[in-house]
């Protein structure tokens, strides 16, 4: 981040999301005062009521684009932001709400709302990067607060954040976990999933759910063959890939292969 004579201004913006990722920042307890010291928190509806106009040195954007209004609002956020970082699966991949992309939105509306005619929504939930240029994407559902602090620290110094794109398996092995797929026969998305959670689920003998989305260079088709051997039928495999990161290309394509 270029040196300025004022404290860098931070904006936290919310689009279609559950607020969980923004809360990760509030969850930073010990570090929160240090964050508030390092930056001027200029817009953060979850934490403050102040709405400051002007420009932002660093914008953290949570949530996906699901309405025409939001599609316009993100343009405004982009215009006001020197650096724009998207945080969480909603913002980076469309989130769990992107399940609508696989179905007919009108069916959902009539099933869920008594008066669907009052609802104005797009037929899709799409990541922020489909709408504006994004400087950095921080993955996760929810994001890891350690990684969030790392990203903020990195952007304040103008360096690349350390958030590697390797598999969850690598972290599993660093921790000395016993592989749940090999030793227990448990289906696990770790081999195709982006690092970031410190292999949380495998550390508790659960298979990875893919919260951090696809790793770089994933081979979901090969993993699916293994899932098949482990006894997952096509509709289970489809649902395995179709969760928080359902609309991320490699997971979307793989889930579509299992549609019947």
């Amino acid at each position, binding site marked *: 981040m270029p040196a300025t004579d004022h404290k860098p201004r931070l904006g936290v913006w919310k689009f279609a999301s559950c607020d969980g990722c923004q809360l990760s920042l509030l969850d930073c307890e010990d570090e929160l005062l240090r964050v508030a*010291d390092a930056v001027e928190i200029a817009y953060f509806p979850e934490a403050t009521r102040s709405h400051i106009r002007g420009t932002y040195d660093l914008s953290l954007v949570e949530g996906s684009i699901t309405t025409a209004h939001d599609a316009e609002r993100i343009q405004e956020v982009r215009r006001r932001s020197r650096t724009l970082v998207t945080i969480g699966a909603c913002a980076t991949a469309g989130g769990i709400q992107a399940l609508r992309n696989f179905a007919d939105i009108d069916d959902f509306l009539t099933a869920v709302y008594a008066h669907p005619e009052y609802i104005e929504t797009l037929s899709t939930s799409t990541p922020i990067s489909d709408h504006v240029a994004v400087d950095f994407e921080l993955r996760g559902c929810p994001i890891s607060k350690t990684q969030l602090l790392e990203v*903020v620290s990195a952007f304040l110094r103008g360096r690349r954040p350390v958030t590697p794109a*390797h*598999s969850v398996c690598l972290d599993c092995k660093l921790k000395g976990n016993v592989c749940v797929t090999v*030793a227990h026969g448990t289906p696990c998305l*770790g081999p195709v999933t982006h690092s970031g959670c410190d292999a949380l689920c495998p550390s508790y003998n659960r298979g990875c759910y893919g919260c951090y989305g696809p790793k770089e260079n994933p081979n979901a088709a090969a993993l699916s063959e293994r899932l098949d051997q482990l006894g997952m039928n096509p509709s289970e495999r489809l649902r395995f890939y179709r969760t928080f990161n359902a609309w991320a290309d490699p997971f979307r394509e793989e889930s579509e292969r299992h549609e019947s």
Partner: protein
Amino acid sequence: MDDHGVSSVITLDGLQCLLDALARRGYQVVGPRVRDQAIVYDELARVEDLPVGWTDEQDGGHYRLKQRGDHALFGYAVGPHSWKRFLHPPRVGLWQATVVNEDRLHFEPVRDDAPRYAFVGVRACELAAIAIQDRVLMDDNHADPHYRSRREQAFLVALNCSEAGGTCFCDSMNTGPDVKTGYDLVLTELLEEESHGFLIQAGSDEGADILSELPGTPATGAHHRAAREVVERTRSNMGRSMPQTAIPALLMDNLEHPRWDDVAERCLSCANCTMVCPTCFCTTVEDTSDLEGVTAESSRRWDSCFNADFSYIHGGSVRNSTRSRYRQWMTHKLATWVDQFGTSGCVGCGRCITWCPVGIDITEEVRAIQGDSSQGEQT
């Protein structure tokens, strides 16, 4: 087995005395234990902590613990861990830099208090792997201080294998199953109907010292014969074998072989094989700074040639495809390692086969390139 002049036979009580003697000398004793349905390496205090009566069933991408029906303490093959995690730890802090007086940086190495480890149950393939890592990480001119400080203090209680795993092929790599060199003490488990003990031999002065403190009886010719039978039986039970051919030339002459595309279809580029391999030594350095921009930290962690960042240079990654990454792994292990370090980089422990989530088998891949895939299936 190079006998340091001393050998004797000890009982299970004698083995406990060995664990106690090591602890008394200030060693942190590490050995096989059951955790999360596998045999891992962890701290050990009592003989009962060992995986008594357990064995493992191993195949490509498959590992299951099984009851043996006897009380063997070492009746299984190697598991997901190797001694690498102790000698060449997954993460090591390197240095910290702090800004003092506006623009002066103060650098401070991260203190590395290397524990004194005693490893119990180090198999022949693992001794071979340690010898390989010694060549890579303790070369006179380029020694890694973190590895060296751990390695030089380590006490190795080796083990002649009494059980070969379904993915073992040390015999065809000439690294086992019998222990030949590089240990302080070596055990052979002698388990018969009416008796259960260990032939124990010293391979170093310290080993001989400790051995002299243990309650035991002198080993007879019969004991030595029984121990030889144990390893010969193990040798005849190898789950896999590496084709006996000039592998470096075979691979380097076939860098465009269609099999690389075939394996790339199956490989997840997940890096598990490189993580579990006891000889893979690659690391990356991660540099971070804090929120205030006052302190920076540098640390090291295991890395793998299966990651894009691994071959990242100005302009991008050199190895983008899984094909090129798998080829890098296999040619390094089996071919270019020989040019670099004078031996193969593979000791035939089988970990990369068992712990590959999709069961890719390095011996089968060699066989396929050799054009002899009919023998690929071996159990």
